[in-house]
């Protein structure tokens, strides 16, 4: 009986505002006082469970002074050593792990051996910490100024200015709780994209629909990016479009390279987690189905429906994530995802064999003393073939977000890598 009564209470007045929140409240625990159910979910992102292709495995390790983490996620380099060949000469060849829940983002970035392999800039912080308040402070109220200042710092220095992983304030307006974009990278990236589509000075926080915001808040970080120029500005390469071909064209025009491949001397690119870009090519995006729909589905808590803030693999939550729209049994839903991912994985392995073969051929040709002129064509093809593969490989849904598009990209990648091998022989 008590139960019913308090449920009705909640119904009428879902959230008791016990504390006042303002634009400087970065501690999620404080927000949690007003929104305990969302806070509980948010805190559960520490969990680690493995799915067939996603989630993450909790791998115990003995903490050291340099890296106090007692648990990490499995190493992808060990799962597939071909990655070391592809990334030879780049920090990723030193340490690259399966990603895990939001709660770990700050630690995982701070302690990855990639920090040892190379000096990293303060720019990194943009997507691994609650930087909204720190940016505002640094820029004396000017978000972009603060962003630019932190980009220019060495990582260690910037690290001192932040405290939390992504927090409530990074996605919500403290007054209305409405979604908002706080990341300069996305604000500028989406503006460039819209401009290319003929929409002048697009302001996402004024012009986006609520539905779009349910994906844009994730697009703040789950995107391909690069550091532009000596000032290490974070840029999302969308000025020509979101399709991988447009992104590659953008890099080629600006002559950007992430590093020179240690084995082949090719000027290559590294792609990172383009979930937002790939999702955009899929049928779900086309149908207005957003990240939040699947990764933060509504959950009934007591007499209320709330967004599950335990952001995780939908494979661990099929009932809520999928079944409202797809009335298939959970086992069937899981099977559908895994059939897509299985096909994807097969083609991804073909593409990886192809680019590794090209790299080995280039290495041999180089050892045999062939001139840069001789190798130019093959190197250009490695750059393109490898980027296409890496783009799909770095995308974390194992093909699910856009199955046909991912396969198209892999098919093109295979073609380019094999043509590279042919170029060395003709």
């Amino acid at each position: 009986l008590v139960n019913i009564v308090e449920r009705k209470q909640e119904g009428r007045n879902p959230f008791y505002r016990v504390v006042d929140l303002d634009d400087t409240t970065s501690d999620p625990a404080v927000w949690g006082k007003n929104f305990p159910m969302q806070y509980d979910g948010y805190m559960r992102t520490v969990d680690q469970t493995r799915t067939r292709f996603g989630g993450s495995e909790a791998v115990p390790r003995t903490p050291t002074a340099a890296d106090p983490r007692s648990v990490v996620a499995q190493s992808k380099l060990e799962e597939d050593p071909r990655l070391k060949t592809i990334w030879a000469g780049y920090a990723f060849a030193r340490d690259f792990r399966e990603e895990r829940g939001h709660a770990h983002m700050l630690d995982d970035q701070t302690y990855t051996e990639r920090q040892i392999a190379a000096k990293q800039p303060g720019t990194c912080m943009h997507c691994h910490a609650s930087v909204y308040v720190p940016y505002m402070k640094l820029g004396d109220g000017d978000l972009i100024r603060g962003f630019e200042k932190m980009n220019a710092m060495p990582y260690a220095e910037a690290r001192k200015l932040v405290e939390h992983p992504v927090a409530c304030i990074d996605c919500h307006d403290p007054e209305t709780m409405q979604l908002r974009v706080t990341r300069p990278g996305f604000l500028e990236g989406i503006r460039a994209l819209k401009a290319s589509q003929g929409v002048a000075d697009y302001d996402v926080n004024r012009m986006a629909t609520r539905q779009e915001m349910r994906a844009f808040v994730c697009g703040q970080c789950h995107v391909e990016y690069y550091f532009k120029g000596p000032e290490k500005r974070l840029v999302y390469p969308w000025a020509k479009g979101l399709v991988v071909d447009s992104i590659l064209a953008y890099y080629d025009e600006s002559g950007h390279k992430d590093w020179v491949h240690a084995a082949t001397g090719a000027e290559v690119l590294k792609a990172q987690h383009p979930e937002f870009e790939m999702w955009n090519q899929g049928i779900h995006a086309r149908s207005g189905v957003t990240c939040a729909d699947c990764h933060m589905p509504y959950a009934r808590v007591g007499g209320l429906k709330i967004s599950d803030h335990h952001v995780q693999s939908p494979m661990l939550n099929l009932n809520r994530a999928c079944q409202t729209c797809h009335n298939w049994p959970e086992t069937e839903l899981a099977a559908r995802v895994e059939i897509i991912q299985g096909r994807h994985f097969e083609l991804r392995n073909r593409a990886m064999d192809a680019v590794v073969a090209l790299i080995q051929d280039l290495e041999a040709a180089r050892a045999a003393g062939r001139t840069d002129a001789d190798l130019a064509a093959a190197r250009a093809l490695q750059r393109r073939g490898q980027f296409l593969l890496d783009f799909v490989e770095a995308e974390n849904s194992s093909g699910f977000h856009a199955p046909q598009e991912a396969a198209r990209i892999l098919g093109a990648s295979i073609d380019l890598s094999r043509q590279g091998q042919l170029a060395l022989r003709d």
Partner: protein
Amino acid sequence: MRFRGTEGALVGIAIGLAAGVGIYTFVYAKGGSYMTNDPAACANCHVMQDYYDAWLKSPHRAVAVCNDCHTPHALVPKYATKASNGFHHSFAFTSGRFKDTLRIKPHNLAITEHACRRCHEPITHAIEGPRESDMLSCVRCHASVGHLR
């Protein structure tokens, strides 16, 4: 604007005819069904039969009739809607001028969206945006609550 005599007359006749046909249609095709709350009445039209059958199998059968979802709550708009839809559907039905696969009209969908809230407000309170323009669509996820298509 002003009509010259003959035109005015013609228009008058036209309207008269339209009304006449309309009334005939409305009565003959049981457009009056719209005035009751009995779902079976909707099924007076075989084109509605499928929806009726599907509704019988839906969880809402026990709790919501067609009109709970397809007409506004307030009395006046309710009967206004019934009349307009009633005439529209009757006319469509009589003339046979409508597509085989029916699609709810935007304004009727809006009515339905509000209907959801009428009953589920308590539970969905938390997920509603502050402004009407932020109202998210229930049907986007619960398209088949009334009747599987």
